[in-house]
């Protein structure tokens, strides 16, 4: 019995890479939607308009209280029964975005609430409205605080996209499953997949670290 078969790895590299591209595409689309939508959710949750903040709380609790796998299945298999028919990619994007937006909105909220009251006072005393103060003073500082957490969610999402194999999106894990069903080269195929994931997420983590240092501007004394 042979463990790692380089010939098999080379022969299947093309289809696996195509699957990896779907994985990356899915990640980028979902994180882009989630970063924006989660901010709206967070601001809604902090709103003084009670029905809105209540709605936001319920949404977050439902998303956090049910498995992501179930949410995916629900969007793809259950919604068609009430006439909402989505292709698998769209279903994956919707389910992942709803799920991640809930978590990321909590990250935003904690970042916004971490900004000292004095900053709100100073902005208000200068005649800024709440909206302007949020946009110009609070959010720029809050974003800096939450970048490490956002980076974690980004990398976690990249790996969670593998769950989309259940709604038959041909991302990299699903591709490997199909190939392995044909040639039984589990060790080789899944090792290649693991290396592919790591080859993307490790540099991504480094990039997040770089962003963190770059946005620390004004928060650390410059070297004299």
């Amino acid at each position: 019995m042979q463990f790692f078969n380089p010939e098999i790895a080379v022969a299947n590299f093309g289809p696996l890479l195509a699957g990896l591209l779907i994985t990356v595409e899915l990640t980028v689309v979902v994180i882009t939607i989630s970063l924006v939508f989660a901010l709206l959710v967070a601001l809604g949750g902090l709103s003084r308009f009670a029905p809105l903040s209540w709605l936001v709380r319920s949404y977050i609790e439902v998303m956090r209280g049910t498995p992501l796998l179930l949410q995916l299945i629900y969007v793809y298999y259950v919604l068609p029964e009430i006439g909402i028919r989505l292709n698998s990619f769209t279903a994956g994007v919707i389910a992942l975005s709803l799920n991640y937006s809930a978590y990321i909105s909590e990250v935003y909220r904690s970042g916004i609430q971490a900004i000292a009251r004095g900053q709100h006072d100073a902005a208000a005393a200068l005649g800024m409205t709440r909206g302007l103060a949020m946009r110009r003073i609070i959010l720029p500082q809050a974003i800096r605080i939450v970048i490490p957490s956002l980076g974690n969610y980004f990398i976690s999402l990249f790996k969670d996209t593998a769950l989309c194999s259940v709604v038959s999106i041909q991302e990299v894990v699903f591709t490997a499953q199909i190939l392995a069903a044909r040639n039984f080269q589990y060790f080789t195929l899944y090792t290649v997949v693991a290396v592919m994931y790591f080859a993307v997420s490790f540099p991504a983590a480094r990039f997040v670290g770089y962003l963190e240092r770059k946005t620390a501007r004004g928060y650390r004394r410059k070297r004299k």
Partner: protein
Amino acid sequence: MIGPPLASDRAMIELEDLHKHFGSLHVLKGINLSVSAGEVVCIIGPSGSGKSTLLRCVNYLEVPERGRIRIDGKIAYRDEIGGAFRPHSNRAIAAVRTKVGMVFQHFNLFPHLTALENLTEAPVHVLKVGKEEARLRGLELLAQVGLVDKQGAYPEELSGGQQQRVAIARALMMNPKAMLFDEVTSALDPELVTEVLAVMRDLAQRGMTMLIVTHEMNFARQAAARVIFMDHGVVVEQDTPARIFEAPQQQRTRNFLRTILER
């Protein structure tokens, strides 16, 4: 020159029967106070006497449960209709605040902006002043507080005294009609207090209307036209600094001054 310039009779800040509670704590118990245009008034008193809360009510950072506030002769922040208050729009409240500059104990500079950007932020985005005009005015005011060479520095890179001078300049950028100072030297190392007080003296000489909560008795004595002693949410006594410090009429004032001056 010793002593402030003469104030006019026009009232710039008027507070009438101001009441404020924090939970069951009655912090302000019916404050009446008027500050004329160009007048420098210092408020002294023990901690917890309501001085800072009073100051914060003037620009509506705290909302008093009762009472009227007039800024430059106009009823500010809310209307009283049949015993109930109707707050003005957020924009109207913000507009009044631009006329009343405030400087805080902990500076509250915006840490993500440079000194100059701290100054230009509100003029550009609130008053819609052009960027270049705001920049020139910002440099002018940084020069006035002696920090023009620190224009590109972030707050974190400045000493406490420098930060507080930037904060004063930031408030002046709005061309306020009055300035509020909330224990602005209390968080500073002793050797940095002087430079901040010098900026405030200079401002007083230029005729700015100033309402100052302070523990700096020498400053109050020299710079103020009037000193107000507050305790337990009431104005106990107010008079010229000479009379307050040399011949206070109330026992509570005497006790407070003794504890402060014996330090």
